[in-house]
């Protein structure tokens, strides 16, 4: 969780990641930032995020992102 928050704050420090649940829908995270995020998640958590997983539902909140990471880790 903290690792993820660190990555997020590095990419875009302006958002309130603790509470916001519409990060993608509200365009707080642009597609540029989304991809940078995915790249860094892959590196930090040792998972590979397939492109079909890049959908708003998986990235709208920190909680959703953690869920995705856990799911991917299980699959590995």
């Amino acid at each position, binding site marked *: 969780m903290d690792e993820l928050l660190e990555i997020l704050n590095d990419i*875009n*420090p*302006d958002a309130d990641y603790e509470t916001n649940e519409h990060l993608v829908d509200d*365009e707080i995270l*642009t*597609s*540029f930032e*989304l*991809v*940078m995020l*995915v*790249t*860094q998640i*892959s*590196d930090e958590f040792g998972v*590979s*995020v*397939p*492109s*079909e997983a*890049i959908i708003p539902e998986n990235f709208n909140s920190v909680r959703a992102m953690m869920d995705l990471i856990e799911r991917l880790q299980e699959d590995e």
Partner: protein
Amino acid sequence: MSLVSYEFLAFFAIAALLYYLVPGRFQWMLLLAVSILFYAGGGAVYLLYPLATAVSTWFLALRIGKEDSVSKAYIQEHKPDKEQKKAYQAHIRKRKKRLMIAGILLNFGILAVLKYTDFFLQNLNLLIPLAGEDGSVWQAGWLLPLGISYYTFQTMGYLIDVFRGRYKPEKNLFRFMLFVTYFPQMTSGPISRFDLLREELFREHAFDGTQFTFGLWRILWGFFKKLVIADRIAPAVAMITSSPETYDGIYVLLGMLGYTLRLYADFSGCMDIVIGTSQCFGIRLPENFQRPFGAKNLSELWRRWHMTLTGWFREYVFFPVSTSRFCRAVSHLAGKAGLKTLSKKLPVYTANLIVWFVTGIWHGAAWNFVLWGLANGIVMMVSQEFAELYRGFHRRFPKADGSVYGAFQKVRTGLLFSVLLMFQYYSFGTVFAMLGSLITTGRLSQLYDGRFAELGLAGADLAVLAAGLILMLAVSVLQESGSVRKRLAERPLVLRYTAVFLLFAAILVTGCYGRGYDASRFIYNQF
């Protein structure tokens, strides 16, 4: 059949009448018949292209779906351990991928051959002179089937979605054919997603007076934008943009703004006609424009302009390329070499440039369009690089977020978009020469120097244009706080009737359609 023709209106009226006369379960079949008829109106031979795309994609998607169910059954039956399961799934995925790639190669192949052969030949000629003695290069000169860029993209989106397991493939070939050829959207989009359009197309639709009226209103509004605004300035814009040697100085700005306005009024007007027509059939289509000139930066503008196409590129090109094994490997390498920033940004920027290259060439088979696309991509990367700087600026001056600054941002973004569009109509060198000419010699007084008169815009045209623009702007502002049509519908009958009637009369009288009136043709001048 053009969307702006008497034939289309008659066709639409008959189709709508029949649509609500047949029993609900036959409605989609009627739509299919009507769509095929519509397309065949432009030459029955051309029907072969969308039909080939429909049949091949339908078949391949079904095969992909079958792989999925076979693998599921296998796993249930044999209960393999984790390692075995993983290997098996990888094996199945490979098979599925082969099918998907076959479909993509075939259909994008057809598109590429038809649309880009001549472009390819022209460029090949620059490398190896192919020209005959008279200096001409052999050109295929193939006629493009109407809407091929749109329906190919829509269909390939479906194939990729099925491969990704987003939804199950459609079993019924005819239903799938309707998805590919649905007549309002087939020729110019919007590019729909199967899982969303399916819900709309195959439902039974009882006649809904409100929806039907709203659809008609929207069609009317589309005709207004297209006939009163876009077609009015089109000849003048074409004249300015095609003769930079005559139209320099202030005319560069005029041409630039005119080109953007024409493009927007034409395309978004066309979308209003398409989506409105579809709404009359009770079928919702995705929006393609969301007041793009309210955007505060270029990438936001592009999220609100031709949205279904940019969405398509984001989903099926940008994300896959940026997360591809190749990009990741390169990024890794850069990271190891200690280039941390580069490693972070390499995948995004690579994918970004690819997307914009393709976007450019999608819009037109010429280097102009490629340059235009790449220029957009580069501007967006530069502004991404400056993002940190902006944030810093706003932290220091939190007040610089008011409406004045917002308006400045909107104007700046619109202008930037228009400047970039210059790449579409000027050659690369000319763009800079013309910008230079605007900055160094541009003067408002040039508008009175006789060149303006050559543009063929009479005083009445300018008045109509001004009124039309104010109306478009007003509607746009109203839209920000919700549906204009809903609010109109809540007004008293007399008021809303008058409003719609005035719009209709304005199109009827001031619209640019028909052959125009040339008094001299009415002079008896046989000899």
